[in-house]
């Protein structure tokens, strides 16, 4: 027998409510129940970082959190980075600096980079490299991602948290 549990949370500023099986991961909930397919699923055991989203402002791996655990939480996904159809400076920088090729790691990488810049608005290249080390990219060799994050740091107005 499948038991479903009611959950409600705020995703990218919008309140959502649903009933989910306890074993449904947050990333499945976002993608399959809410249709927010911007968040990608990679390894499903917390190694690749592709499913990175923000839970109450902190990066987490959405494959390792059950959706029921996010009850009452605020979630931000890559879909929440744009404002009024305008790219976030990080997204602009990833585009300009070719910080992506296949794009599979990009949504998680963007949210991780956002946190890196919140904690350290003017990082060195080495600090960015260390900061994004938890997320795998198999295309870029990371160099262009690091350049993109550094470029975004210059463009982001001081104190803009996004």
């Amino acid at each position, binding site marked *: 027998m499948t038991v479903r549990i009611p959950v409600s949370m705020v995703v990218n500023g919008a309140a959502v409510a649903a009933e989910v099986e306890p074993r449904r991961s947050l990333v499945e909930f976002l993608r399959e129940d809410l249709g927010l397919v911007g968040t990608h699923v990679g390894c499903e055991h*917390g190694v690749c970082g592709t499913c990175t989203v923000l839970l109450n402002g902190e990066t987490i791996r959405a494959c*390792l959190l059950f959706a029921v655990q996010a009850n009452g939480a605020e979630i931000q996904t890559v879909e929440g980075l744009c404002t009024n159809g305008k790219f976030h400076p990080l997204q602009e920088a990833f585009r300009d600096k070719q910080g992506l090729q296949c794009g599979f790691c990009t949504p998680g990488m963007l949210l991780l980079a956002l946190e890196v810049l919140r904690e350290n608005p003017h990082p060195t290249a080495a600090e960015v490299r260390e900061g994004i080390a938890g997320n795998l990219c198999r295309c870029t060799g990371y160099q262009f991602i690091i350049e993109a994050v550094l470029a975004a740091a210059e463009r982001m107005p001081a104190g803009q948290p996004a």
Partner: protein
Amino acid sequence: MKPARFSYHVAGSLKETLDLLTELGPETRVLAGGQSLVPMMNFRLVQPAHLVDINPVVELDYVRLDDGHLTIGARTRQAALERSPDVAARAPLLVEAVRHMSFPTVRHRGTAGGSLAHADPAGELPAAVLALDGDLVVAGPEGTRTVPAMEFFRGPFETAVGSQDVLTEIRVPCWPSGTGHAFLEFARAHHGFAVIGAAALVQLDGEEVVRAAVSLCGVAGVPVRAIAAEERLVGAAPTPDALEEAAQAASSGLDPPSDVQGSGAYRRKLARVFVRRALSVAVKRAKEDRS
């Protein structure tokens, strides 16, 4: 859906946690940060019938300094441990151990108690708490008991925490100023699982080692204290020869497992090298702390 079906229960307090564990029976697992348990569930290596989510049990989220001890609530996030000024000042070995544990994103969720109760033989925090002569406080249906770290780890992924128990607190005695510390490890990938790790604490009085603690992870089914290395150092001057002899003493008694990460012989050699390096860093820091 990756994990097998389970029923989900939220505990709001320690009492509720214990009540649920008793009520639901032995097929129940405590869910804290989930950074080890959930991958194991996704692989179906474990298939608990019930989960008791203790994330809302904020009464177990604290770092306190009292009576020369640091006490850490089991539900304290690893990220909080890492950022705590009290931990940095009084037990910096823990901070250094935690920074080897995966990435900040994982440490946002992972908990101090979870890492100890999970008892991965390659786990950093178990080895660090062992080096510090820490105590683990375990609550169960019969009440609360305090288990020394030496007796807490029973085997790979096995501890003194029974199926109706929950680990509630880690108590670590603070070493005095003039103590140097180091946690070093060898991993195949940056922040990956440790092949081996070495923790060292050295207290100096002038040019003499008055107290030393050495422990290792990744060399046996449980974290290991290298008593022979400690005995070699205490009362001696921390010369390079003495550190090398201590490192040899630490590694010679080991019979580490062989696996895809490395053979037992390789691990034993790494243990010698990393104990020597950890001791060397700890001695250097002890001297700096004093000057």
